[in-house]
């Protein structure tokens, strides 16, 4: 038995740092079968419990062992609507793979890599459209076409519901198309998953802002019997330090949306973005890594991650951090920004660089005593301020829930932070209105949003039947 996972074939760091093509190339069939053989098919299946959508993991891996990849695909899609997406962006190391029995002594089975292989194999080799289930006559509206909405839509459509998905932007996919970059999740993969849902009969209506174009109550008037709100993360947070509104300071949402959804990464884009020079990305999550690696690919000379805690506390996936380091992203850890310093040319008031960014001023931090959660909180080192010369700053410190739906839906309870309050079934304070994903939890992962979409779909099915 091989103690290590089979390595993922990838583009070399020095090459991929200059293109937007996918970093990981995926297992071949041979590697997949070999990796599948590492699964012990143990009896208690701890990996299944650790998966937010409870994919029957040993079962699909068993089919890979025998080379029946389509059977493996069918097992996965029994519970997951977006296997090609999850195989790429799920934090498997803290979920299924963290509980793998193999992982007690050796490296766990590469479950995520196998899932991705199966989904890609299906997309490449199986051309027939999914079977359209018999309709049951009930109509459900889904608000938002991100991971929670797509999952909820897929599960309900499979059960025969007439599902309409309302999307505010011009393109379906939510964070999968505006947020996660091409090199981590190709747009074609997302498009394929959405086409699969269309084959199941799901209707997508783009350019409809729920809370503006239509309200939730109007959806009920239109004949929808239940509504799922998966409107996602909302307004970007800022640090409230001087200089955050200078030219050249972006929220990660804006920076990534310009590059991904608005295609600013292409050679001749219609939507502009700051390119080149030195870039500081503030934050340590997956979004920060995406922004930093995007800046690098857009042609930056130096890209810095500025994070106030230490490497151990970085909330990003280990693999993303590793990829970023290989590509040459520079980690300025234990530093907290205190000011963004403007560029001013005193001799020329018309200098177009005026009002832009000259540097980011940080203060060094050291880790103090552990807090109640055991996390050692950073404490500023007095008098240790220093400047990093940069031209662009991207703030990636999270988001707060979007206020539009709350404002226009009477009786919809939200918590102190603005997140929609739900019970364990995803039901809100209003009958027949369910919610899940970042709109409930604040910024979290794709798979936890999918889990919430799945839970709500089951509850909606129970409610309507």
């Amino acid at each position, binding site marked *: 038995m091989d103690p290590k996972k089979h390595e993922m074939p990838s583009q070399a760091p020095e090459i991929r740092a200059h293109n937007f093509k996918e970093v990981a190339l995926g297992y071949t069939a041979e590697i997949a079968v070999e990796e599948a053989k590492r699964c012990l098919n143990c009896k208690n299946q701890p990996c299944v419990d650790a998966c937010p959508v409870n994919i029957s993991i040993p079962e699909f891996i068993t089919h890979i062992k025998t080379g029946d990849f389509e059977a493996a695909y069918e097992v996965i899609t029994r519970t997951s609507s977006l296997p090609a997406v999850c195989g790429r962006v799920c934090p498997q190391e803290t979920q299924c793979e963290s509980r793998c029995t193999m992982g007690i002594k050796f490296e766990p089975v590469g479950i995520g890599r196998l899932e991705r292989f199966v989904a890609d194999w299906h997309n490449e080799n199986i051309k027939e459209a999914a079977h359209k289930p018999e309709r049951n006559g009930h109509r459900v509206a889904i608000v938002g076409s991100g991971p929670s909405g797509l999952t909820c839509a897929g599960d309900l459509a499979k059960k025969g519901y007439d599902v309409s998905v309302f999307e*505010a*932007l*011009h393109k379906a996919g939510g964070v999968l198309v*505006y947020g996660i970059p091409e090199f981590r999740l190709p747009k074609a993969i997302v498009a394929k998953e959405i086409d699969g849902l269309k084959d199941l009969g799901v209707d997508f209506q*783009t*350019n*409809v*802002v729920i809370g*503006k*174009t*239509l309200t939730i109550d109007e959806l009920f008037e239109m004949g929808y019997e239940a509504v799922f709100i998966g409107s*996602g*993360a*909302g*307004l*970007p947070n*800022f640090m*409230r330090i001087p200089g*955050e*509104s*200078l*030219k*050249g300071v*972006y*929220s990660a*949402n*804006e920076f990534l*949306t*310009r590059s991904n*959804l*608005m*295609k600013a990464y292409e050679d001749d884009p*219609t*939507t*502009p973005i700051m390119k080149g020079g030195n870039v500081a990305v503030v934050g340590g999550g997956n979004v920060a890594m995406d922004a930093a690696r995007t800046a690098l690919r857009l042609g930056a000379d130096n890209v810095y991650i500025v994070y106030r805690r230490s490497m151990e506390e970085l909330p990003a996936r280990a693999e993303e951090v590793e990829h970023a380091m290989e590509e040459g992203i520079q980690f300025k850890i234990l530093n907290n920004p205190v000011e963004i310093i403007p560029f001013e040319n005193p001799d020329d008031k018309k200098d*177009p660089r*005026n*009002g832009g960014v000259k540097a980011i001023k940080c203060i060094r931090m050291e880790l103090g005593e552990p807090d109640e959660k055991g996390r050692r909180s950073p404490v500023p080192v007095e008098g240790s301020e220093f400047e990093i010369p940069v031209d662009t700053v991207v703030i990636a410190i999270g988001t707060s829930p*979007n*206020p*539009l739906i709350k404002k226009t839906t009477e009786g919809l309870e939200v918590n102190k932070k603005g997140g929609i309050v739900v019970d364990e079934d995803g039901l809100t304070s209003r009958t027949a209105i369910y919610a899940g994903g970042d709109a409930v939890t604040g910024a979290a992962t794709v798979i936890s949003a999918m889990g919430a979409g799945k839970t709500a779909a089951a509850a909606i099915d129970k409610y309507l039947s």
Partner: protein
Amino acid sequence: MYKIVSRKALRPTLTMIEVEAPLVARKAKPGQFIILRVDENSERIPLTVSHCDLEKGTVKVIFQVVGATTVKLNHVMEGEYIQDFVGPLGNATETEGIRKVCIVGGGVGCAIALPVAEEFHRLGAEVTSIAGFRSKDLVILEDEFRACSDKLYIMTDDGSYGREGNVTVPLREILASGEKFDMIIVTGPLVMMKFTVLTAKEFNAPITASMAPIMIDGTGMCGGCRVILHRDGKDVTAFACVDGPDFNGYEIDFDNAITRSRMYNDYERHAYEETCNLFKNA
């Protein structure tokens, strides 16, 4: 796809289009805006709603041909389609409790100010309008303003039409005469709005400014449209798309807004020239 049912050139670089968008027409109120994309490779541009026709299900917007995207939009003819049209976005202009209002519009900003003036007129408020332009050939919507205003002042910078001077001249005179408004609402270039606010401030008169910053989604996601407000001695970050676009004029950091509005000037100029040359060759 959204059909252009009619279009009208108000001036060589100012066009009104009427777009078939029944859901938007049903909801849009004065002060709100829409975002459109001309085609699959176009950027998203915000434009203020100028008129809605409920029966026809259409929405009129007025745009100035300033950049690559608006050049492209200006080439979409009657009966043709644009890719995307979403709205209404932002909050409607606050009208409650306002019985006497002064509407101040600058240049193309008058196209945004007009529906607000019309709404107040419809609600029975007393409307004073001040519309300022650089010169006579740039004057727009005069008849429309006259129809909804109890008093109308047309100003031109060079004196070629109406009175000579900018909008602050009559505003100062009116306020100095002791006349009081429940609200002054100003729409136009940032510099013009900044000085109109300063004029109102001299008389402690309440004033709202309608902001039109750079934005992408317009629904509270990207944060590009942030406006810095000075409130209770603190800087507050607000978002034009969900908190605005109207803000208390006294609170707005206009200098910062002016700097941010120039973020892509070089890029825009370049793109515009490219587009123009392209059309020349075609």
